[in-house]
């Protein structure tokens, strides 16, 4: 990063819809639920919003081509500068980065960021839309499905560091349990490692309960420039740093045991936030957990655990809500649900509440002052990172 941004940007409101397997509501209506709630909690009206960023993943999920435009009115973007932020699964956190650039640059003072996904329209399963992420000529003829790439990555991660599947199943246990306290949660549950490993093997080493669900839902936040944030909010939560990076699209050429793209994104965000010792200076993390192993993988990429050692940290309780570094206190994608782009925004909502000490039954102890949210996507190659804090 060449230059520090000149203007400070804060999150001043957050909102959610329920996360559901199937919603009656259209994607527009879900977006409205979350967006209007974010405005209400920020104490601003739609007419005060100067620009809107919409995050929503592949068009083929909702089955609406150019769905960013279609969602416009539900996101509050009518007659305003409106942008769609889209980097696949990384879109949720990327949308906050996009909103941040709009405010930090001085272009706008109040920006609404909305994430939405309605995957239930896609039949028989949204994986049908995902198949085309594989190379049409040298991969698709082999008949791949999306689970392949994750199970291959998880196996490489396990074999590189001697990690057992029991260690990974513990992520599902922790996150589904954390989600019991989340009002939007779709798949909260009290399970044991045994339960997770007793669920069907979909693609070894991945079991069904190590995969996040198909979800409909929306989430939103309001971003404000410093002078506006101080006027409107008693407890603004500052976006201290952002970062993103993409690794090669030749996914078979990547180090499948270590997400270097997350590390690059994290280093950019930490540099901006002035963090030199992330393990000491970050008090809470919402890493992206669409698959159980991914939380561990990402914690290592975020430099919050040693390579191959995140499972040990998990097993000794370091990542519990009352642990040294609570991770996914929301319940994450494994527990709250995975409406793709909305899930990333949900993670930022969680940091917002946690850092304000308003997370109620989910509140982590010790007055956390700084947290990191991260998402991952495109062809499994992007890391998107945002550091939020109270100062």
């Amino acid at each position, binding site marked *: 990063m060449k230059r520090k941004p000149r203007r400070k940007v804060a999150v001043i409101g957050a909102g959610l819809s329920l996360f559901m397997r*199937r*919603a*009656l*509501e*259209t994607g*527009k*209506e879900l977006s*409205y639920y979350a*967006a*209007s709630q974010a*405005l209400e909690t920020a104490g601003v*009206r*739609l*007419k005060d919003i100067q620009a809107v960023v919409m995050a929503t993943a592949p068009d*083929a999920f909702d*089955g609406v081509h150019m769905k960013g435009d279609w969602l416009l*009115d*539900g996101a*509050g973007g*009518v*007659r305003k500068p409106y942008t769609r932020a889209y980097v696949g699964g990384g879109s949720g956190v990327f949308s906050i980065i996009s909103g941040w650039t709009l405010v930090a640059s001085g272009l706008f003072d109040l920006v609404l960021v909305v994430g939405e996904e309605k995957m239930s*329209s*896609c*039949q*028989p399963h949204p994986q*049908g*839309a995902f*198949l*085309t992420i594989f190379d*049409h*000529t040298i991969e*698709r*003829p082999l008949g791949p499905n999306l689970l392949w790439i994750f199970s291959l990555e998880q196996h490489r991660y396990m074999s590189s560091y001697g990690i057992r599947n029991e260690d990974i199943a513990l992520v599902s246990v922790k996150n589904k349990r954390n989600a019991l306290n989340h009002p939007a949660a779709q798949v909260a549950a009290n399970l044991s490692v045994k339960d997770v490993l007793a669920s069907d093997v979909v693609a070894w080493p991945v079991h069904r309960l190590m995969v996040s669900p198909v979800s409909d839902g929306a989430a939103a936040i309001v971003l404000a420039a410093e002078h506006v944030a101080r006027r409107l909010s008693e407890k603004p939560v500052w976006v201290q740093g952002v970062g993103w990076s993409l690794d090669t699209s030749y996914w078979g050429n990547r180090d499948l045991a270590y997400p270097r793209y997350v590390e690059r994104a994290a280093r950019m965000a930490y540099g901006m936030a002035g963090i030199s010792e992330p393990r000491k200076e970050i008090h809470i993390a919402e890493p992206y957990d669409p698959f159980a192993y991914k939380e561990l993988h990402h914690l290592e990429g975020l430099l919050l655990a040693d390579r191959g050692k995140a499972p040990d940290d998990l097993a000794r309780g370091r990542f519990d809500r009352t642990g040294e570094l609570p991770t996914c206190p929301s319940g994450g994608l494994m527990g709250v649900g995975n409406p793709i782009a909305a899930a990333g925004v949900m993670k930022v909502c969680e940091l917002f509440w946690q850092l304000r000490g308003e997370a109620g039954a989910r509140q982590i102890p010790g007055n956390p002052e700084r947290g990191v949210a991260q998402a991952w996507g495109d062809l499994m190659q992007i890391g998107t990172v945002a550091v939020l804090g109270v100062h």
Partner: protein
Amino acid sequence: MRRQRDNATTRSIAVGGLARVEPRVWRGAMPVQFLYTAGAAGERFFQTLKRKGIFTATHCEECRLTYLPPRLYCERCFADLSDTWRDVTPVGRVYTFTIVHVDREGGPLSSPELVAFVRIDGTDGGLVTRLLEIAPEDVRIDMSVEITLAPPRKRRGTLEDILGFRPARSVAKRPFTRR
């Protein structure tokens, strides 16, 4: 200047100036189907249409807008409109129309179809629909039209319950709607 179209499957091209190679094409499809819900507002709209044969709209008092098809919220001010339902008689005026002579594949239609955007009286909205029981040369912009619905037992609560709009039988004076 005319150029011959390249036939990608037979033309061989130089690669790095060294070899010639036959470009290939891989054929495939995206196996997706969709089942859309009508949404919270859409559900009420279609169930009302199915059961009572009328439209239902939502209204924003602040912006003085009546949404048809109905919306749960006002897109201008974000007011929640879920308690603002009002029944609307499905009559309106032809806002614009076109005469379609070809099908979606570009083949000729046996008889031209009349497609119009009809603004619904008393609302700020309307819908794309077919015009029925009228010859193309008789259609006029702003003419009054009324709905032709499928018979009650055949209605499924979808857009297909609306067969089209036909010239209004009683030409009552109706207020112009605001844009």
